[in-house]
């Protein structure tokens, strides 16, 4: 069946079987690899995306229910890493293996959309569906609080601790890009 929905603000049409999960439409049909496959049964949260602003498990959302919806993936947070959560994640060096982090970011983004100053309990409730097998929970929690600060404008993002200072011309530079 042909399905048309908005993907990160762009109208997108795919022709897939009606029971195809959004996860696999994103990964295989549209080549958006940011959204991850972890369990396939809505238990791990690696595939979390936003549908109409709500954080949902894309492995459980079928093509037949997507007509006309707004889908936002990690690629849609920002392509240049300027979303407050992306900044905080880099600043605090949150990832270990990094596989779950797209899902973590999307759950956290939905939380911050509705709650500018989440408590630990709010974070527990919003993030409990996202497993981090490496157990970076301490930094995820700190990252959400840091992003909330950045978003509220109470602080400006700084270089991560120990990261060498900016280049001599004073412009911030992406310091750690691998060359491939």
């Amino acid at each position, binding site marked *: 069946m042909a399905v048309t929905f908005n993907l990160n603000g762009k109208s997108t049409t795919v022709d897939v079987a009606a029971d195809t999960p959004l996860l696999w439409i994103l990964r295989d049909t549209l080549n958006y690899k940011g959204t991850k496959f972890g369990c396939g049964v809505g238990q791990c949260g690696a595939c979390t995306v936003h549908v109409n602003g709500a954080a949902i498990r894309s492995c459980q959302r079928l093509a037949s229910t997507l007509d006309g919806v707004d889908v936002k993936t990690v690629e849609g947070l920002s392509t240049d890493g300027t979303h407050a959560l992306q900044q905080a994640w880099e600043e605090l060096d949150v990832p270990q*293996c*990094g596989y779950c982090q797209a899902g973590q970011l999307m759950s956290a983004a939905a939380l911050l959309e509705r709650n500018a100053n989440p408590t630990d309990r709010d974070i527990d409730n919003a993030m409990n569906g*996202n497993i*981090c097998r490496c157990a970076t929970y301490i930094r995820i929690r700190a990252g959400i609080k840091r992003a909330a600060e950045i978003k509220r404008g109470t602080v400006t993002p700084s270089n991560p601790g120990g990261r060498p200072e900016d280049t001599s011309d004073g412009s911030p530079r992406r310091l*750690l890009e691998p060359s491939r």
Partner: protein
Amino acid sequence: MTTTIRPTKKKGLHRRDFFRVSALAGGGMLIATYIPELEGKLSGLSGRARADFMPNAFIKITPEGVITIVSKNPEIGQGIKTHLPMIIADELDVDWKDVHIEQADFNPEAYGSQGAGGSTATPINWTPLRQAGAVGRAMMITAAAQTWSVPEPECTTGHGAVMHASSNRRMTYGQLANKAATLTGPAANTVKLKDPKDYHIIGTRVPGVDNHKIVTGQPLFGIDFTMPGMLCAVIEKCAVFGGKVVSANLDEIKREPGVKHAFVIEPGPVARDGLLSSVAILADTWWQANSARKKLKVQWDEGPMVTHSSAGYEAKSVELSQQPAQRNLRKDGDFEAALAGASNKVEAAYFYPFLSHAPLEPQNTTALFKDGKVELWSATQQPNGGRGLVTRTLGIENSDVTIHIMRAGGGFGRRLTNDYMVEAAAIAKMVPGTPVKLIWTREDDIQHDFYRPAGWHYFSGGVDAAGKVVAWRDHFVSFGEGNGFSNSASIGATEFPARFIRNYMLDASVMPSDVPMGAMRAPGSNGIAFAVQGYIDELAHAAGKDPVQFRRDLLSQWQADPPAPAAEGGRGGRGGGRGGGPQFDAARMRGVLDLAAEKANWGKTTLPQGTGMGVAFHFSHRGHFAEVVQATVTKAGTVTVDKVWMAGDIGSQIVNLSHAENQAQGGVIEGVSHALGQEITIDKGRVVQTNFNNYPLLRMRQSFPVETHFLKTDNDPTGLGEPMLPPVIPALCNAIHAATGKRVRTLPLSKNDLKWG
């Protein structure tokens, strides 16, 4: 390892090119992000006379000043892709911001060992990689000194440049690259290494080099790899270990939407770890392949394992424990006589279950078989083992196999075994010229793992009137045959408290099983520490002593001579293990024990009823770690970890402060995750658990603060991937005892009734 061999030429398309092609095929969205600025720089240079400076396989400096450092080991979340280049860059004396990091393909001739396991990367590479950087720096000094006709000792380096202070001259490494490329470098073991006080990258907080790609969702992991014309594959194996395909409804499956091929795979020459009898389905998309799989009907010959079960193993263990041990692994003094004279005797049986690794990225590999050669894109911890498995199974040579090491969404030991890699290679061989990406489901992963072996420890021992341990016996019951233990199911003859108790016996009995077993983060130690440190707590209780003081006394009461390094037994990197290195050192352990107790304010806080502190220490993978857990147990028996204080001694230098802290906290939390509710059970020769709903991993709500403290000692730096994990499990169980009076001797905690009051 030699540091003077250059990388061999890559054949065919570079991985980077594939990414670019795939991005185009995907509609162009990712092109911009996949043609980095660097490539633009380089492509404009073709045809011009130039020489890159490549003093060894790890460093490349172009005349334009582009500094590339190759990271040779697989990145599985342990931070190695940042860690190893940091070591090189510091000695090369360049600024981290100027460095580009590139993941190496598998090429042991160029890079030496390339693996992720046993917490070995730091001990193996600490000196050679500092030397690799220092050779590059020395050659830059030579190039500058010759250019300026000044003595080398008058030259200094900094920020990727050589300086001559008295003449106020400076040349960047890029400017010197052409000249340096003509020089012969000094022998690696002759170069002067930095004084640690001069490190400017080592010992700082450096974020992971792939973080930006991770947070912006760029393709990065093995599962993200794609190629034009690629098919996606699923594989169905018998749920019963060792079962074989008799027949399957392949004709029906081939008519399913998108399905291009379906076939039976015959088992390969390597049993258990290798290619198993199975059915593969290939389709245009993974979802199509997996949908077709749901209609797959296979008639299996389930084989002899169908009679095996966890309940059967438990019964066999009890039977073995009541018989004389099959063999003795260590005997000091006279255990029986000492026990007879003890004033307090304690008997206890400890059990820990099978566990599954469950890395979050399901197993996958992309393979292309063409003209008798196979190219593989795989997240693997042990590419060398993978290559061996592929050559033996496909009947090809090492030179016919190319392995691109992909970033892994977790390892934990699972990807030391390359079964999924050989599956992809075998499937690809059936469709020559067509690239195939095999992806397992989570259910495949949990039901076809190489499990952390279950184990039983039957302890008996006693303390004298002064509270000193006078007798200790552990009858360890495990899996294996004859004098051999199953993979990662062994115990070493130097395992603590061996050497610290005069009348000590370590016995072992084994039972056979074809349940696949393998190394899981801190193999052996992750179960043994729970049993040993729990039983030590029981002895402390019997002696009426404080658990920290009791352990201090145990560390100082007596010590046999350490074994010769070669005598260190057992698999899994405990003790000296692979790569040699330090043995259990009582003074170092005392150091971390005291530090953990001090930071936790041990014995100085009054805790409410239902809350308690527990302590444990363990030596593994060359690291000495002590941990204190504070836990609260509700009257209904629900356990909450309030906080953990970790103290570790991994030598004189922490390479990356940021990742070390992250890794240490994650390992401690993982240990608690094992304890809370993780268990793999076997019934009718197959695994009962299927997914995260019945194999629960610790979640945000259960997470807790972990204070990490490192005791720097005058010892060579060693690894941090594993040794933080084992002590937290017994420390938690000992905290539960302090909180409730209930002793946990069986894991996971969910099998214990912890109600109190």
